[in-house]
């Protein structure tokens, strides 16, 4: 058992963890109920909303922790707030308590996720470094790699580079190649590999089905954003869409990942390419960022999470003495 400042710090961390879990459940529910409507928003807005979904639990955890901190719990100014929500004995922390266990589980899970992501990062860094070493630099961001596999991708987290294979150059026209290179340069411009890694890190805290959908949506949005990055008129949109179809057909002849032939994967690919082509052909007006709605939902979630943390705390401590 510890007292005073350290105890207060540990108790506030336990509050944060509990608030994070509650917020995570509510954010997942909100996301699941509006997932179908996200396609009505422009790609950049959709990306912002997806970021908001994965970051909101952290923001709520921080807000709730602040509400439970002495900043808002001491003195007469926030007396009504203290009546509404409070934490029992914040200056005493028991190591053999549910507070401590929840904290340990969260820290353990976070370390597991971080280690896993760092390993991915390290492996990717090694592979990209080797590709850079064996490739020839075409310009500042584009590397040419000698391979019959028609491929184009962007990799590298801090200084991303585009990789274009000789197989792709041989089988595409100069215009098509330019479209592909511009698409990859858009990924460099947006720092997509780094953002993808960060997004996967934050979304790892969600339940499996929510996590996969969040990541698929973000991945698709990034591709759609890169598709339209340099498109200035409908004619160019059509050319990008045609190139996408041609490239997909070309790549299909080089099955380098034969083990991914499950129904789910086929559906995902088809869905992804279909969505990208339809997005390029579509000229409908998209909805703007729902500022008011987002603000109301976040405030509501802060309120729900704060009262839920207080209620959960009381229920657990009434049923079991720690």
């Amino acid at each position, binding site marked *: 058992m510890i007292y005073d400042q350290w105890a207060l710090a540990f108790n506030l961390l336990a509050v944060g963890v509990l608030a994070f879990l509650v917020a995570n459940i509510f954010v997942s529910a909100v996301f699941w109920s509006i997932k179908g409507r996200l396609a009505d928003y422009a790609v950049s807005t959709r990306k912002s909303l997806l970021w908001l979904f994965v970051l909101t639990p952290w923001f709520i955890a921080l807000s709730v922790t602040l509400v439970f901190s002495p900043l808002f719990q001491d003195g007469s100014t926030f007396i009504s707030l203290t009546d509404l929500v409070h934490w029992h004995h914040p200056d005493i922390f028991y190591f053999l308590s549910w507070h401590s266990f929840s904290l340990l589980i969260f820290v353990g899970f976070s370390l597991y996720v971080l280690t*896993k*992501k760092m390993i*991915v990062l390290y492996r*990717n860094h*090694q*592979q*990209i*470094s*080797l*590709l850079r*070493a*064996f490739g020839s630099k075409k310009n500042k961001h584009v590397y040419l*790699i*000698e*391979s019959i*596999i028609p*491929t*184009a*991708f*962007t*990799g590298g*987290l801090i200084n991303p580079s585009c990789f274009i294979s000789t197989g792709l150059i041989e089988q595409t026209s100069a215009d098509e190649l330019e479209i*592909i290179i511009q698409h*990859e340069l858009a990924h460099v411009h947006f720092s997509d*590999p780094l953002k*993808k890694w960060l997004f*996967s890190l934050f*979304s790892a805290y969600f339940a499996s089905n929510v*996590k996969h959908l969040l*990541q*698929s949506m973000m991945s698709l949005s*990034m591709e759609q954003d890169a598709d339209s990055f340099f498109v200035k008129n*409908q*004619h160019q949109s*059509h050319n990008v869409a*045609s190139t*996408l*179809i041609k*490239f*997909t*057909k070309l*790549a*299909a*002849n*080089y*099955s*380098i*990942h034969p083990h*991914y*032939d499950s129904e*789910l*994967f*086929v559906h*995902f*690919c*088809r869905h992804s*390419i*279909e969505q990208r*082509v339809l997005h390029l*052909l579509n000229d409908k007006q998209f909805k703007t960022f729902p500022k008011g709605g987002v603000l109301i939902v976040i405030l509501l979630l802060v309120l729900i999470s704060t009262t839920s943390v207080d209620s959960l705390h009381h229920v657990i401590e009434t049923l079991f003495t720690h």
Partner: protein
Amino acid sequence: MQLGELEKQVLEYLWKIQPADAKQVFSYFEKNRGGSLNTIQSTLDRLFKKDLLGREKSGHAYQYYPKIERQELIGQLIKNVTHDFISKDEDSVVAAFSSISADLDEQQLNKLEAMIELQRQKLQQNAE
């Protein structure tokens, strides 16, 4: 895995001429870029430790040979890097122009292609 410039050059040399011992490699690089036998020996050793070279003892010296051919190595790297992207993996850190798979429905792609063509024609008609 990082590869220094000399490591890359030695590997490229061994892809062309293999197997070779340290002296053979040194005699080639001595003419082309200078350096000492020790440097070549340690470079070969580093490449061996990185698992890019294999070696067999022949007399007093090791004969070094690439464990994997150039095309094969690049193909393997492409496969590994794009694997994350195509597998709908949560750990994907690569953004590729299109997913690579032989499992796409050709009919579906043809349908999309026809749709693009139709839109193109409409646009042309409107312009006229």
